[in-house]
């Protein structure tokens, strides 16, 4: 059961195996200490199970892509799951048909060897298997057809802009796309000669016969081409985007074990970056693409420049031109931690910037005493929106809650704006000082008005007291009956701040609070799909006019149902919208303060 034409395939598989093992090994060896500890500790734990389920769901069934667009999901599923089943069912078929054992490639070229080799013997369900294999091949081909269709017209598949691929990716794709049609033709030619195969293959065989190819001589060439296509695809795969197929499985496993990105690029980042299928879903809904038509900075291109050393010179500009609004990560079917990878690039390119004396003032900031009180941290941004801090003070007073307004007179930034720009050490010095002051203060709870600070306190700090955003806190005050509010006549729409919603998953508390003081109107793109206000601190590249265009789009969305007031829960969003002067803008806290009874 051997023929020379199987060699390209065998060499390809071998190359793929060797290169993948080496690559993965290198990456794993570049995990940082923390990541290694997490892997070793959880490697054999039950966390394995959800990882298996997620891998099946995402790598084979492409659940998240299906949620994005049903046809696109079908396309990915038929190619991935269809091919997977072809391999599995083909292997079973080969085992059943060769009771004396067989070389591994026989399953791949089964129809070729079946009529020729005496070692392949007929078995009971053989026709059933042949039909099944043909059905699966048809399934894969339908996906392939959609993929080709998408290349011409991507809109029905839920995508406006698609990724621009590099040469390797294009060659690999050509190889991939020719595998299945070649297989069909090769099997069809065999069928014309030997009358084997299921309904599809024999139909192709009949077609050959009808076209006058009695006993086609090109059968062998077709099998050779099929093998070549497989061989080229497999050997290029580790250098192309198709590496994502296996890498995603590893990524899902590590992620389920609890591994996360760190401040610096590690081997784990390599897994994340290679798990990106370059599907380009991150492009369409990025506000920078939607409003400014800049479509070369999104996740897919960021990862491309970071993966490829030759493109590194572009990485900095790409990494900086992003608001870190998280809309792309919300859509990314692989769940790549794009924000952190972006920050890693920023850190890398900021390495030369240092100001060792810039934080001397920290020593002069005094600790405060808030024993038994709630510490209220307005945040630097709220200094620019005194309406919010005034409202919060009024609410604390109405609830009879003793509080300490931490940054009324002297304040230290929470550090997140620096962190977002990749100034890790600098952000750290602020964090350490704040953490020390909170620890000494004796406060029982930390309430903040700024989602940026909130995200910082929750994710970067290690505080010994609970932290709440003021929307959560107000919700609890109302629920506990500590403040009473009346429902006003006005209607509002609510803008989810990126940092609070997608950043920290706080969608419900502000809505609950708003419903108790006003009529909350639904809008088209909200919660996880909310649009960035454009003035997010994440971006230092866009000009004010560009930011204003992004803001206006968000406002169009918010003003569509003609609310009396646009409500938000972030001082920065509030300022962004107020500047446009298109409608009254109020923070949730202000609306509550107005409706206190």
């Amino acid at each position, binding site marked *: 059961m051997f023929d020379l034409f199987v060699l390209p395939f065998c060499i390809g598989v071998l190359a793929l195996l060797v290169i993948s093992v080496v690559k993965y090994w290198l990456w794993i060896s570049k995990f940082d200490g923390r990541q290694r500890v997490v892997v070793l500790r959880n490697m054999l734990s039950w966390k394995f199970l959800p990882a298996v389920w997620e891998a099946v769901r995402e790598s084979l069934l492409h659940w998240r892509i299906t949620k994005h667009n049903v046809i696109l999901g079908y396309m990915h599923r038929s190619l991935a799951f269809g091919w997977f089943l072809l391999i599995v069912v083909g292997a079973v078929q080969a085992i059943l048909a060769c009771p004396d054992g067989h070389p591994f490639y026989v399953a791949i070229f089964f129809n070729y060897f079946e009529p020729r080799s005496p070692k392949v013997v007929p078995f009971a369900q053989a026709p059933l298997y042949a039909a099944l294999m043909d059905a699966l091949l048809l399934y894969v081909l339908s996906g392939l057809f959609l993929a080709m269709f998408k290349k011409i017209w991507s809109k029905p598949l839920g995508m406006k802009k698609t990724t621009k691929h590099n040469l390797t990716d294009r060659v690999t794709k050509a190889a991939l796309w020719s595998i299945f049609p070649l297989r069909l033709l090769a099997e069809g030619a065999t069928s014309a000669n030997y009358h084997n195969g299921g309904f599809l293959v024999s139909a192709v065989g009949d077609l050959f016969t009808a076209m006058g190819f009695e006993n086609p001589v090109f059968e062998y060439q077709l099998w050779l081409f099929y093998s070549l296509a497989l061989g080229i695809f497999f050997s290029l795969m580790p250098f192309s985007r198709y590496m994502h197929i296996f890498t995603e499985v590893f990524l899902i496993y590590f992620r389920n074990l609890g591994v996360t990105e760190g401040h610096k690029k590690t081997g784990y980042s390599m897994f994340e970056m290679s798990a990106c299928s370059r599907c380009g879903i991150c492009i369409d809904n990025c506000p920078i693409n939607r409003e400014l038509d800049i479509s070369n900075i999104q996740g897919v291109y960021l990862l491309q420049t970071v993966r490829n050393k030759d493109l590194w010179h572009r990485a900095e500009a790409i990494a900086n031109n992003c608001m870190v609004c998280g809309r792309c990560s919300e859509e990314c079917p692989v769940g790549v931690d794009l924000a952190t990878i972006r920050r890693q690039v920023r850190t890398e390119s900021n390495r030369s910037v240092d100001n060792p004396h810039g934080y001397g003032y920290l020593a002069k900031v005094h600790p405060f005493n808030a024993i038994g009180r709630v510490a209220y941290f307005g945040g630097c941004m709220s200094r*620019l*929106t*005194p*309406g919010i801090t*005034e409202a919060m003070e009024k609410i604390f007073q109405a609830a009879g809650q003793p509080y300490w307004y931490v940054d*009324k007179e002297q304040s230290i930034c929470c550090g997140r704006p620096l962190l977002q720009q990749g100034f890790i050490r600098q952000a750290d010095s602020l964090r350490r000082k704040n953490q020390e002051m909170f620890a000494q203060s004796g406060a029982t709870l930390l309430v903040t008005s700024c989602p940026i600070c909130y995200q910082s306190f929750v994710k970067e700090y290690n505080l010994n007291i609970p932290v709440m955003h003021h929307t959560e806190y107000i919700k609890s005050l109302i629920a506990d009956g500590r403040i009473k509010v009346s429902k006003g006549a006005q209607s509002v729409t609510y803008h989810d701040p990126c940092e609070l919603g997608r950043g920290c998953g706080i969608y419900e508390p502000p809505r609950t609070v708003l419903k108790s003081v006003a009529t909350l109107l639904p809008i088209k793109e909200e919660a996880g799909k909310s649009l960035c206000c454009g003035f997010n601190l994440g971006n230092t590249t866009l000009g*004010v006019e560009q930011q204003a265009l992004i803001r206006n789009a968000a406002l169009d969305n918010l003003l569509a149902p003609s609310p009396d007031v646009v409500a938000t829960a972030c001082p920065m969003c509030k*300022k962004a919208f107020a*500047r446009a002067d298109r409608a009254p803008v109020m923070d949730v806290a202000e609306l509550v303060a107005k409706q206190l009874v």
Partner: protein
Amino acid sequence: MGAGPAGIEAAAALAASGCGVVVFEKNERPLSNITDKACLFPNFESADTVAAQLLAKLSHPNISLQCGHDVSCITSAGTDPAAGWRVDDESFDAVLLATGYTTFNAKRKEELGYGIYPGVHTSLELEQMIRNKEIRNSISNLPKRIVFLQCVGSRDEKTGNHYCSKLCCVTAVKQAIEVKKLLPSVEAYVFYMDLRMWGQHYEELYRTAQQEYGVKFVRGRISEAGGTFDGRVQIKAEDTLLGLPLRMTSDLLVLMVGMESSDGTRRLSTLCDICGDYGFAQSLDPHLRDNLTPRQGLFVAGACKRPMTLTDSVVDGRSAAFAILSAADNK
């Protein structure tokens, strides 16, 4: 359109040359941007006197004034560009847009606390106090200190207004002097980016404010304002000449709000297809054809084009009348 200084001056000049003129004014009264002032810079002439003189010009028999008429429709009367214009239901040979300006809504800069802290006022509100000769702090006492902040809503990238409003610098100087005249013991500070004393006698006025009235000028922006328990305003700023941050508590913080295109200017110039930067109406060119527009028979004058002082608006109105007459002659 618009019975402000430019519109009135143009109407008067046209009427004197024998034209029939209809002046549409959306407010109940003409000259609303003058009659709310006390005195005018640089010579402290009473605003009421100037307003009365301008109003008198409207009594010419060729002029019909339609107050309370907010024009909703301006179209050319026919396909021929020389056919003239229709305004609402009347026909005219020429239309002059003199719809003027409005002031910046200070609530858009929330960090300055307008509408939140009772001690924060706009320059218009202070003008009203000066007019009533009654300057009080938020708890109705005589103020001891008053701080002016220049360029609120002008020269400000964040609010999208990159331009200089031209007259707030000298207005602050004028108001500071008036405050000192009324309350000699008050301390007056003016925070500025740079002082643009471009007009005749402005520089002298600035000098007088410092030398005779002891008004203190600090170069620097106020970054934020906060309230104190006794209703005063605490400001944070930077003195950019000393390079030092400073804090100060003041009874009053006066925001020198800039000029923006008025709603009427935005709406009508858009309707006529001549809406330019920042919603101001755009003339053909700023040098020799500043009253003309690309559309025959449509003219522009005054602060609907850009920030302009009273003096400049009057001159521009007259020049527009001349442009209208020459266009008619050519026809």
